[in-house]
């Protein structure tokens, strides 16, 4: 086909009035028909419509076109559409070239005459490239029918359950000793006030017991290689120092631990205490104890009391094993779902709210543990307890502050965290519930009650006597130095009455936002993901491919992609699961044909392409050049996305993306560079 003389069809799209109202489409068509190699030039209102596509197909069949140029929108939009058209008409789909006269022309120019001239140039450049296009063959690869889910919060759990229920193997890797994630820390959920644990724990148990799910808690993905359909992952199962096959979860070890009640519990946001050998929370799954190697005296100091470790002695099952070592497990999977979740904003980064200084300034997540029936205070919002967790007082004047670490350029987070408005409303409700006499004030910038039942709930909370003051507090400080007096002053301007207030409270809850995880870089490096400007993982398309990533076969679920509430997280997890299932169930996948290729005779094996490749698609391999063994780059075509980073980095010009070779781009530049 490529040996035949190019016979080009040019199709100029009006895109309704998107292009047609600025660019003189008939003039572009007339110009195009005068260009060398162009056999047919036509215009149509909507090229992407069925009749528009049929126009192309008919011409290919009747006039023997062998190159097609569609002058319309961005190739990101409709290149796949028209490639399909060519394929259906029996032409190699890579004989398509698109001229973007919408995003890069009609939408950005006001001068109609100049826009038309530019559109002509863009079409002419496309013709110049079409003359040297080559047929490319797509490859089909098998998909291993399994999925690796990273993170076992509600997103990971839901995605894993859906795929497992469809009958396919799922590996779930969770970093902490228990599944559950942040949702297991929450008390009630807005706006329905379901008990978080009640709706989550059954799913946690399911994920552990499902015959198709292999759950690996206290484990981390160490390395990932391969490509869509054929990933290989190495997982480090960290040593728990407890034999999980023997541990019955009775808890005698923790009671006997010499450090019992002396180590702040991460699960309880450091409000409660745990032992060095611990179960993060009573409903943890698996219900197996873990020794914290950094805190355990035996493991960190090599010595625990005079008689040796008390936990080991107390364990009747003989499950404690200080000799245990990390274990590396290799797995193969066809798809990956990243559901690594989020971190809450570190309130210490807003020093004006004095979270680090005063015990009665707490974050929203600390509040959840404080009011949780399974929390360290048994659900009573007690503040100022002593080291043993006794004593304390109940607050009478409670303040809630919105947007702490969200919508705030000063801390680098411009985005809205989407959950704080509602969780603070819920927490205000919980305080009202537990302390009917308390005075409750919420300081807000805006209340974004956008979801199903949200506005109704917000209204209900206000009717319960919660005062909403519109203002962003500038400072929180203690009224006086008396340690017995817990009164805090919240300095704020009520922007609706333009009054400066100094309101007294004895408890301040900070509505901390959601942030990308602190270890997000590691995950990016591992899976070659990209970040949006807010730091969360970037989806392949913000609207049409919200769970896909730029790497085929890797999907996103939950807050790792951006802040969201539980229903949205579950919905996205189900979306990610179904996207993964499409690949798994069909068993085959076509990989991109516009990939990079190496001219190995020009490659000197420096490996800069390997370093810059965002997809890990290039490796250096040995090549035998007449007996001399040299290193040359080799592209894994299943992994390559044709982004061209390698071509930019290559000092010798030995690696280039197909369809974007120098000899294909230069004629385009030559056309654009000529003045008319």
């Amino acid at each position, binding site marked *: 086909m490529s040996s035949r003389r190019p016979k080009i069809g040019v199709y100029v799209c009006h895109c309704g009035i998107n292009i047609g109202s600025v660019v003189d489409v008939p003039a572009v068509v007339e110009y195009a028909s005068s260009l060398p190699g162009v056999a047919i030039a036509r215009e149509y209102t909507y090229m992407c419509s069925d009749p528009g596509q049929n126009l192309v197909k008919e011409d290919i069949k009747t006039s023997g076109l062998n190159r097609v140029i569609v002058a319309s929108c961005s190739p990101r939009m409709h290149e796949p559409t028209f490639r399909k058209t060519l394929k259906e008409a029996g032409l190699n789909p890579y004989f398509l070239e698109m001229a973007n006269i919408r995003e890069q022309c009609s939408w950005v120019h006001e001068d109609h005459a100049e826009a038309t001239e530019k559109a002509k140039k863009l079409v002419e450049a496309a013709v110049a490239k079409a003359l040297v296009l080559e047929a490319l063959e797509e490859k089909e690869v098998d998909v291993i029918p399994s999925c690796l889910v990273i993170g076992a919060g509600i997103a990971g759990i839901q995605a894993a359950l859906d795929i497992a229920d469809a009958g396919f193997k799922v590996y779930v890797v969770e970093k902490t000793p228990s599944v559950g994630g942040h949702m297991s820390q929450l008390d009630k959920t807005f706006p329905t006030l379901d008990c978080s644990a009640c709706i989550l724990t059954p799913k946690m148990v399911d994920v552990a017991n499902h015959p198709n799910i292999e759950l690996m808690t206290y484990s981390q993905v160490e390395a990932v290689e391969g490509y869509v359909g054929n990933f290989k992952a190495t997982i480090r199962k960290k040593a728990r120092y407890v034999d999980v096959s023997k541990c019955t979860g009775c808890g005698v070890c923790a009671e006997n631990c010499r450090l019992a009640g002396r180590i702040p519990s991460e699960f309880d946001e450091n409000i409660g205490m745990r032992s060095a050998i611990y179960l993060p929370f009573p409903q943890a799954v698996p219900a197996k104890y873990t020794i914290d190697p950094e805190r355990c005296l035996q493991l960190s100091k090599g010595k625990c009391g005079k008689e040796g470790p008390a936990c080991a002695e107390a364990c009747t099952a003989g499950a404690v094993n200080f000799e245990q070592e990390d274990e590396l497990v290799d797995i193969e999977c066809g798809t990956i779902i990243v559901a690594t979740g989020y971190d809450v904003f570190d309130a210490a980064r807003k020093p004006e709210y004095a979270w680090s200084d005063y015990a009665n300034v707490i974050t929203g997540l600390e509040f959840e543990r404080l009011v949780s029936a399974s929390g360290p205070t048994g659900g009573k919002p007690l503040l100022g307890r002593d080291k043993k967790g006794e004593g304390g007082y109940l607050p009478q004047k409670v303040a809630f502050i919105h947007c702490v670490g969200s919508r705030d350029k000063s801390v680098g987070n411009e985005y809205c965290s989407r959950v704080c408005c509602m969780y603070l409303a819920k927490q205000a409700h919980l305080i009202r519930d537990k302390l009917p006499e308390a005075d409750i004030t919420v300081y807000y910038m805006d209340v974004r009650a956008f979801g199903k039942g949200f506005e109704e709930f917000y209204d209900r909370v206000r009717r319960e006597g919660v005062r909403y003051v519109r203002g962003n507090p500038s400072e929180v400080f203690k009224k006086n130095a008396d340690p017995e007096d817990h009164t805090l002053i919240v300095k704020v301007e009520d922007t609706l009455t333009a009054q400066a207030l100094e309101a007294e409270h004895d408890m301040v809850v900070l509505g901390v936002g959601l942030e990308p995880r602190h270890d997000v870089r590691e995950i990016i490096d591992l899976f070659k993901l990209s970040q949006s400007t807010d730091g969360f993982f970037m989806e392949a398309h913000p609207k049409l491919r919200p769970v896909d990533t730029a790497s085929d076969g890797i999907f996103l679920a939950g807050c790792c992609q951006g802040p969201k509430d539980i229903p949205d997280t579950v919905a996205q997890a189900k979306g990610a699961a179904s996207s993964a299932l499409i690949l798994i169930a069909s068993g085959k996948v076509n990989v991109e044909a516009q990939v990079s290729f190496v001219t190995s005779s020009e*490659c000197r094996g420096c490996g800069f392409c390997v*370093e810059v490749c965002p997809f890990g698609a290039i490796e250096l391999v040995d090549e035998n050049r007449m*007996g001399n063994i*040299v290193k040359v780059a080799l592209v894994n075509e299943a992994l390559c996305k044709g982004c061209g980073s390698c071509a930019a980095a290559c000092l*010798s*010009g030995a690696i280039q993306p197909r369809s974007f070779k120098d000899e294909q781009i*230069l004629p385009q530049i030559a056309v654009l560079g000529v003045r008319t």
Partner: protein
Amino acid sequence: MVDETILREKAREVLARDDVRRLIGWKRGTYGYESAPAVLKDASQADELIFDPTCVQNPASFITLEEKLPVPRGQDPDTRKVAVLVKGCDSRAVVQQLVEKAYTRDGVIVLGVPCTGVVDRRKAQKMFGDTSEPVMIKEEGDKFVFIIDGETREGPRAELLADKCVRCRFPNPLVYDELVADEVAVWGADEFADVDEFEKMSPPEKWKFWEEQFSKCIRCYSCRNVCPMCYCLECVVTKQKPQWTRRSTDVSENTAYHIQRAWHLSGRCIECGECERVCPVDIPITTLNRKMTRDVKELFSYEPGVDVEAEPLLSCYNPQDPEEYIM
């Protein structure tokens, strides 16, 4: 001052090693004011080596030039190391080649030669005329002492030093396994006075200047061949698909060639001056390169060939890089 006996002794030791294939250095030239590069394979040849102000060549150019000949059936390829003698300026080429991963550090043995400056052939010819016999040069205080055709002549050091030596900031090698003499004190500084001077010309004057220079070019590619940083397996000037520059020697294609070479050396040129030295028609090639060097230094705070740990300028991306010149 380098003691040639010690230099030869060290070279002999290295050449005697089982894991060394060859040693690159300098030997007496066949005529005129320059030495010749020496590629030695055997310890017995070590006495050929010299080091004096005639040793202007950059031996680092040869490290990457070796052709990989077919290995006869049944034999293993020769993977032994290459040893090289380098002056301070030459060592920058080794550094940059290592940065660009042209070879591994393990693959070369670098013998560092602290240098107090070499003689510019053209300046000497002007002062003393040409000769068909090899000239001996010695440095004595602020003079160079020449033995030309058996006759002893003298000339002031400042007037005979190569330009690169006048502004030399790195007389001592930046990378080496062993030094063959004690380090010397730094005497030079580089404020890019030559570039400043050149930039005083107006654009039409500059254009006229370069048009004149490039119209002389015979496209012998000596500048490319001698350049230690020009070691691509296939040079862009010989590529046919696409053909970036035509082969004809007219001023337009010559200009394209020289601009292309300057761009390809931006952030890579280590200013050894070899290109200009070998030019048979005396084109001031380093002026172009030094303009690029200064721009790279000002825009990206990057200086090639000084840090083995650095990344190549054009293969790394920093979000803080200035972009004013793009838009």
